[in-house]
């Protein structure tokens, strides 16, 4: 396979790959989590946004009584893991419910799920659905990198192709159109020779 064709093929693949990641990074989407929070422990779902945007989480406790669900900024989460004291953007305490918030800015956020105070020694079963409607930096970054690689490789491939096509037809090119190609007989001595084909 010619190198320009190989490059254009890889570039096309990188573009499709990049576009699909970019689309998954930009498009609103939801993720489902079926969790079992061990007795005395907590569970956290981390997510990151490029800019301020709405987010919501719907939960349904399946075992172990009501849950305490917090939506925290990164700073609040750090303080929580250090001191054990929970501060939050939004808080819900029930067997089922929905948390919604307009995140103030881009950054990393955490959804923290804990047992009810009176049920610390039980396993908490809970189903959570997160709904995102902003750009995910990881997916956006991978998608953008894929697109960039595709554009660069495609550019190099197209340039090589143009350079190849600008050259006089070679015997290999002739074989592509004729199946079997014949070399031009060598020119008589004293005359310049053209390309074969």
């Amino acid at each position: 396979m010619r190198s320009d064709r190989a490059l254009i093929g890889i570039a096309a693949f990188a573009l499709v790959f990049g576009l699909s990641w970019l689309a998954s990074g930009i498009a609103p989407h939801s993720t489902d989590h079926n969790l079992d929070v061990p007795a005395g422990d907590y569970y956290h779902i981390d997510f990151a946004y490029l800019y301020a945007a709405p987010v919501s989480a719907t939960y349904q406790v399946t075992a172990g009584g009501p849950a305490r669900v917090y939506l925290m900024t990164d700073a609040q989460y750090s303080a929580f893991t250090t001191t054990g004291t929970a501060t939050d953007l939004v808080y819900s305490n029930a067997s089922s419910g929905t948390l919604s918030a307009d995140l103030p800015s881009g950054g990393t956020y955490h959804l923290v799920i804990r047992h009810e105070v009176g049920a610390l020694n039980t396993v908490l079963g809970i189903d959570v659905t997160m709904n995102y409607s902003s750009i995910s930096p990881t997916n956006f970054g991978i998608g953008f990198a894929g697109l960039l690689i595709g554009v660069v490789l495609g550019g190099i491939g197209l340039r090589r192709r143009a350079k190849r096509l600008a050259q006089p037809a070679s015997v290999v090119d002739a074989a592509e159109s004729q199946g079997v190609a014949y070399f031009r007989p060598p020119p008589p001595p004293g005359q310049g020779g053209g390309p074969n084909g």
Partner: protein
Amino acid sequence: MTEAKVAFIPRVVGSTRATDRFYGLVLTDTRALLVFEWAFNRVLSLAGMFGGLACGVVLAIVLNAPGTTPVYLVLGLMILGPLVARVFMPRNKVDYDAMTAEGLARLQGTIDIPYASLVNLSIERPNRRVFPRLRLERAEASGGRTTLAFALRPEPAWFRARRREGLKPTAVHEAYAADVRKAFTTALPPEVASRVRVSP
């Protein structure tokens, strides 16, 4: 007098269990040169595919990508893996126009078959074979004979063009075999052509 290059037949393939070796066949006025172009290694290609699969699974876990993205990631890397593996397969960059027959003969991997040593030559499409087969039987200096067999795979662009003309694949391959036969009868000197049978 310099040796004249007469005809070029692309994609002449010698296969073993693990590899397909691709040659460009150059017919000169004194010999047939099978010029090594590249070798497709099936084991390396499979290793690339499984490597891509493993990388895709690891990346999907590390990135914790949502939805169906991990599936696309794994499939994409499974396709990319064999392509990357191709980079490591041996390859000669050959300029058939600029290089002399002597230069082509000196390239690593070239099989040199002087017409003087040619005993028999057949180009036919056996049943249940997709591509026509080229069999060259040559006499060795030791007195023995060696038969070399290759598949004649036409250029995909040429094949597609014939298909667009309405020819069936078998008819296209038959026509290609006839073209290769014609190239040999053009290139072989009369004294060799009278001795060697270009069958059928």
